[in-house]
């Protein structure tokens, strides 16, 4: 499944939001939430993150590296998320997010579909 197909399937599934405990979000769950009310986790809230400029969520303290990426115009799309989740350090050197990323395309696209549906 490509990230494009992931977004399409997520759109078809709308408006049913998936539980963050779903396996697709398991590698993100420790630090992130798609529940807009949950804003005190180590990572930024990811509710409606698709289409958002990097480091633009008010009130969250981003790393200097992520702020600089946002200022350079990085916007979270299926394509940019796919690259970032594959190797965060390669896309945003110095990011505070842990370096391993999501190793397989299947994992990444499932996570992107989860985000697109939330």
């Amino acid at each position, binding site marked *: 499944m490509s990230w494009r197909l992931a977004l399409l399937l997520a759109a078809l599934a709308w408006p049913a939001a998936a539980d963050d405990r779903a*396996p697709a979000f*398991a*590698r993100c*769950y*420790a*630090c992130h939430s798609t529940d807009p009310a949950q804003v*005190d*986790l*180590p990572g930024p809230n990811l509710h409606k993150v698709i289409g958002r400029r990097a480091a633009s969520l008010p009130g969250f*303290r981003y*790393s*200097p*590296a992520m702020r600089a990426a946002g200022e350079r115009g990085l916007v979270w799309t299926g394509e940019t998320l796919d690259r970032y989740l594959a*190797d965060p*350090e390669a896309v945003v*050197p*110095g990011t*505070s997010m*842990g*370096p*391993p990323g999501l*190793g*397989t395309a299947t994992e990444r696209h499932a996570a992107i579909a989860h985000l697109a549906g939330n």
Partner: protein
Amino acid sequence: MRATTWALPALALLLAWTAQAEISSQTYDLPSGAGPHDVAPAPDGTVWYTAQRGGALGRLDPATGKVEQVALGRGSAPHGVVVGPDGAAWVTDSGLNAIVRVDPQTLAVRTFPLPEARGYVNLNTAAFDGKGMLWFTGQNGIYGSLDPKTGAMHVYDAPRGRGPYGIAATPDGTVFYASLAGSHIARIDPQSGQATVIEPPTQRQGARRVWADSKGHVWVSEWNSGNVSRYDPKSGAWKAWKLPGDGPQAYAVYVDDQDIVWLSDFGANALVRFDPATETFKVLPAERARVNVRQILGRPGEVWTPESGTNKLTVYRTR
């Protein structure tokens, strides 16, 4: 009298200079793509490190700079490593969802998977208690134990769900862990396996890692608040200090053999030494941009830092 007044500050300056002068550092390059997350200096003089990006466990010989890496398996993304009573490296591998043992002589890899029913737990860090039991954390809301002799594993739900991160044992063998998302620390009862939440004084402080000093105090690096805090298990007393600078973010904490507290500060891109006796900080700015030191560990006279942002290990020699 005037001479004495002059002499005392001068003596203090000399002592401070001497203390600072005793610290030297040396940096080692790692193989491209390693992505070191944690280190574990071994009794034989070598230093283990988790190559999180590379899916391997590495071992550096500081005397020669020689590095060897052991692949841990497809999908591996090792986070933490500690040296066990058996001399082996014990790894919390978040990619494999397993505890991994690497033999120090043969480099043989043995994997202890988490129970399938638990799903993905995002394994983080491990510590041995006073009886040789390995305790580990999983950020998705679990902690657990592994008996190295039998392989028996028990996994427990963390009291407040997601968050369990750093874990360490005090000198008497009691294990504490920090909950980053849960903003608390917890003490584990080794008999029942039950974890008891202990609330730091600062709300939403983001307790990320813990370490113990020689007196059994538990030191906590607080990511959100930028504090280092100290918990006394005997009295229940807490005390917290804000790291220097405009926006500190305390990631790692370690207490060395002289009871000096070492912290990494992402906000300042620096290492920070805190002397509990004088309650003073000494900032050691990083020599490179965005070093992102996510853990600190040492042995007598040495403090080791993995630089996840620069793919290097740096040792600070304190005498």
